[in-house]
């Protein structure tokens, strides 16, 4: 994330490997490594399966109070009065807080106005209902179309829309003139919310002027900085802890109201305060993926070369936030032009969500690619190969398409619309993704203690990707000790700074620092042991925890060797250095679906995901990231949709029964092919695999039925409408 890179000044030449990077270069895995790149079970698995892992939601402090927010029921209103008098009399109430003052405006349903703290969660809820807030309602819009309409009165202080950056490359007009085919269509994707299973929240406790905050967050250090700023206290007085967290997907980077409110209420009540949002609050006010609309015109040459692209795009990031997305995505149009408009509506603001912008841009582009391929009568895969950027280590789509086609059985794909005769039709689709990843913000501290303990401290956090395991693997593999020897400490601002876990930057940000710190620690240890083992440190090695003279001779167990350290442990710090990590990944996915043409239900039968991420640290957990990305993209394709009622401005499905998500019965057979590229160093894999599945599914539906779905999610009514339109020879 941008915030993260700002905190770490870039090196003089970001690509030039440092001396340490050369010295401690990765051993090329996996044949030559003990555990690096192997299938390693996550080190905190037993804690997670047994309930021992303590999430913020699980923190209970002596004398702890519960806080509850009071939120606007209106999509747009002015606060006239806030009356706490009844709430203050309610059983168990210990403190109240006005988050906004009378006169201020609320801009969406769920905008926070006030909060209360009470001795139990139920009492806090009871009291929250008694806070009387008088509003003067104001005009609102919850539709992109009405906000865009010049006839709609101004709702937002800066206007209802804001033009985004425009692009204009080449000679678009001439290219369209020369094109053999020109095609026009409009694509759109819906707003979805993050639905973190652990809702946003924190437990805050003051000791004198020092604050300890347990926060469910993707960035302990960033939250400390923002929390200190919000409370106007020194950062040194704030400690943020996040041992385990139940999902963030981009929504848990900042110190928002879920953190600042309990901190302030803890101060006024003199007791620890816990605040965890409920499911409705989570949907309304903790971020979302913006919508994306693309009105596209594209030109192709007779031999299937994409020559011209023109698009008008818009989308909403809520009440004042942007909705940018890349377009066209990956494929090359030599001449292209685009104008974008951010549209504001009275709904909760967007936050980064797993690969921000990419799934949206990917959908419009990939569905268009299939439509263009049919226009020039080419196989969609051939057509893609013809229009990809040149193959490079960070642009491997062409190779992956070929490998995948073979593996997936692409040759069995039938022509568009020929997916069978009965009401069940099957079809295949493909799609590609790219992501930057990389990361530079990581510091590691390695201790080798005289009793043989190894402690590795990194102030990162595990958002589910397996960061704790990555820390352990890199240190253990570098030192030559078993993974169980290493105690990885993360999730605490008392540990060395690491950036927020966003943008697939964590592993690439921390691994180089750990690799070098552990390498230096090993060297220091061997130097100390040399006198006892023949005098020459360069002749020593550590294999599976045994310190030995290379090629045979004296050896010591790890414990015996560390004992020789006496009173003084080995203690080494190192920051991230260039040369052990990199940026930019590529991937492709294939999907096969069955469409029930009578009910409109789409079932995904199988998915093949081919993905690289540079050096794979742990094959097992890296694969999990790909599985997870695929599932999350299936959700985007088939289920999720934040529905707003245009007349009341209310979200009609702020729950988990009408806000649909896949369950285990919806899950296809997924095959993951991780392309290990150890020579590129560590990059990161959290976001890219969630980009392409949805488009591959939409293309597979088109292949099966001949009906083109240009609008997500593929709910049955949409599929049926598209089938109708197709039958009638209309464009849906």
């Amino acid at each position, binding site marked *: 994330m941008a915030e993260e890179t700002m905190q770490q000044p870039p090196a003089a030449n970001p690509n030039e490997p440092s001396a340490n990077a050369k010295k401690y270069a990765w051993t090329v895995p996996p044949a030559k490594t003990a555990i690096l790149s192997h299938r390693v*079970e996550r080190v905190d*698995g*037993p804690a*997670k*399966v*047994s*309930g*021992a892992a*303590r*999430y913020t*939601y*699980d923190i*209970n402090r002596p004398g702890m109070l519960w806080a509850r927010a009071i939120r606007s029921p209106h999509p747009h209103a002015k606060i006239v009065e806030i009356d706490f008098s009844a709430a203050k009399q309610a059983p168990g109430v210990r403190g109240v807080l006005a988050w906004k003052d009378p006169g201020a405006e609320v801009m969406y349903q769920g905008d926070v106005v006030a909060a209360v703290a009470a001795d139990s*969660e*139920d009492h806090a809820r009871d009291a929250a209902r008694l806070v009387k807030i008088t509003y003067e309602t104001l005009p609102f819009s919850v539709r*992109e*179309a009405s906000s865009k309409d010049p006839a709609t009165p101004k709702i937002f202080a800066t206007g209802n829309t804001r033009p985004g950056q425009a692009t204009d490359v080449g000679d678009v007009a001439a290219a369209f003139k020369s094109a053999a085919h020109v095609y026009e269509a*409009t694509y*759109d*994707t*819906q707003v979805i919310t993050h639905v*973190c*299973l*652990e809702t946003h929240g924190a437990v805050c406790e003051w000791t004198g002027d020092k604050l300890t905050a347990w926060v469910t967050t993707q960035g302990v250090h960033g939250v400390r900085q923002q929390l200190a700023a919000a409370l106007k206290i020194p950062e040194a007085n704030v400690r943020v802890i996040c041992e*385990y967290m*139940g*999902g963030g997907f981009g929504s848990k980077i900042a110190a928002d109201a879920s953190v600042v409110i309990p901190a302030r209420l803890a101060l006024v009540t003199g007791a620890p305060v816990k605040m965890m949002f409920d*499911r409705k609050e989570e949907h309304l006010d903790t971020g979302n993926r913006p919508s994306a*609309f693309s009105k596209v015109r594209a030109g192709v040459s007779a031999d299937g070369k994409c020559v011209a692209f023109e698009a008008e795009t818009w989308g909403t990031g809520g009440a004042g936030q942007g909705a940018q997305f890349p377009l066209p995505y990956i494929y090359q149009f030599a001449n292209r032009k685009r104008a974008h408009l951010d549209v504001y509506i009275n709904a909760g603001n967007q936050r980064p969500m797993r690969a921000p912008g990419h799934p949206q841009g990917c959908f419009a582009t990939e569905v268009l690619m299939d439509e263009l391929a049919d226009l020039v009568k080419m196989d969609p895969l051939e057509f893609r190969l013809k229009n990809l950027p040149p193959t490079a280590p960070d642009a491997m789509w062409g190779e992956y398409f070929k490998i995948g086609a073979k593996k997936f059985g692409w040759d069995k794909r039938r022509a568009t619309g020929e997916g069978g005769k009965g009401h069940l039709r099957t079809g295949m689709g493909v799609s590609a993704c790219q992501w930057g990843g990389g990361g530079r913000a990581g510091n590691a501290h390695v201790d080798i203690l005289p009793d043989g303990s190894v402690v590795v401290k990194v102030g990162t956090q595990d*958002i*589910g990707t*397996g960061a704790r395991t990555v820390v352990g693997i890199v240190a253990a593999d570098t030192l030559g000790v078993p993974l169980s020897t290493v105690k990885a400490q993360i999730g605490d601002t008392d540990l060395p700074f690491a950036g927020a876990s966003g943008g697939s930057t964590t592993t690439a940000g921390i691994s180089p620092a750990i690799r070098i710190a552990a390498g230096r620690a090993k060297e220091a240890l061997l130097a100390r042991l040399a006198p006892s083992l023949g005098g020459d440190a360069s002749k020593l090695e550590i294999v599976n925890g045994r310190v030995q003279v290379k090629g045979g001779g004296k050896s010591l167990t790890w414990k015996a060797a560390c004992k020789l350290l006496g009173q003084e442990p080995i203690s080494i710090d190192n920051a991230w250095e260039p040369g052990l990590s990199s940026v930019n990944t590529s991937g492709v996915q294939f999907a096969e679906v069955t469409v029930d043409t009578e*009910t409109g*239900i789409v079932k995904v039968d199988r998915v093949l995901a081919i993905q690289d991420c540079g050096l794979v640290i742990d094959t097992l*957990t890296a694969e*999990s990231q790909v*599985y*997870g*990305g*695929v*599932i*999350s993209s299936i959700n985007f394709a088939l289920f999720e949709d934040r*529905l707003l009622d245009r007349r009341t401005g209310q979200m009609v499905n702020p*729950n*988990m*029964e*009408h806000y*649909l*998500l896949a*369950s*285990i*019965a919806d*899950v296809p*057979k*997924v095959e993951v092919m991780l392309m290990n590229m150890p020579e590129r160093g560590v990059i990161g894999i959290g976001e890219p695999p969630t980009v392409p599945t949805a488009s591959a599914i939409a293309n597979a539906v088109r292949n099966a039925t001949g009906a083109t779905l240009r*609008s997500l999610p593929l*709910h*049955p*009514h949409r599929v049926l*409408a598209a089938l109708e339109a197709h039958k009638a020879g209309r464009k849906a």
Partner: protein
Amino acid sequence: MAQNEDDVSAVSRRDFFKTVGVSGLATGVLAATEQQAQAAPGTLGPGPVPVRLTINGRPYNLHIEPRVTLLDAVRDHALLTGNKRVCDRGTCGACTMIVDGRTVYACSTLAIETQGKKIRTVEGLANGGTLHPVQEAFCDKDAMMCGFCTPGFVMATVALIEKFPHPTPAQIRHELNGNVCRCGTFNRVLEAAAQAGGVNHG
């Protein structure tokens, strides 16, 4: 025309099926509470009352309001925080406990109505330092990411294996269909459940 601009707000078939699924699951819970209600003495509450629960074989004497759910009683009063609260209304399975041999959504069950029953939470599965075979399988297969849905999935899988010691793929999908995972661990949960049941579904 782009369809999201002018959304059809009619309930889709998929919504309809999902709703039916949810009420179907809730029936079991209701049946249990009805029985209890008949046995319960006059009116209780709204203030705290003594509630005696047997959790993982241990007695807990709690002093809680009658409205407190089993989930909140276990998490906030017995301080066993392994089972999670996610939706708090019986749609996600994160709070799944086993009460008298049946899985229940603890968020949608009143604590007071589970008195005299055997309540099992995720903390009760391991035997000292030894994980339950289902827990082992979840670790082996990496059937977790953030881990917040995991205790619920583990409990549902334990109930599955107790009901069908060697489950078929259809039985696994059916019995675990009441649990949601946002990180997307489903494929690996399927593998873990198969391993725990000693079956290989390829």
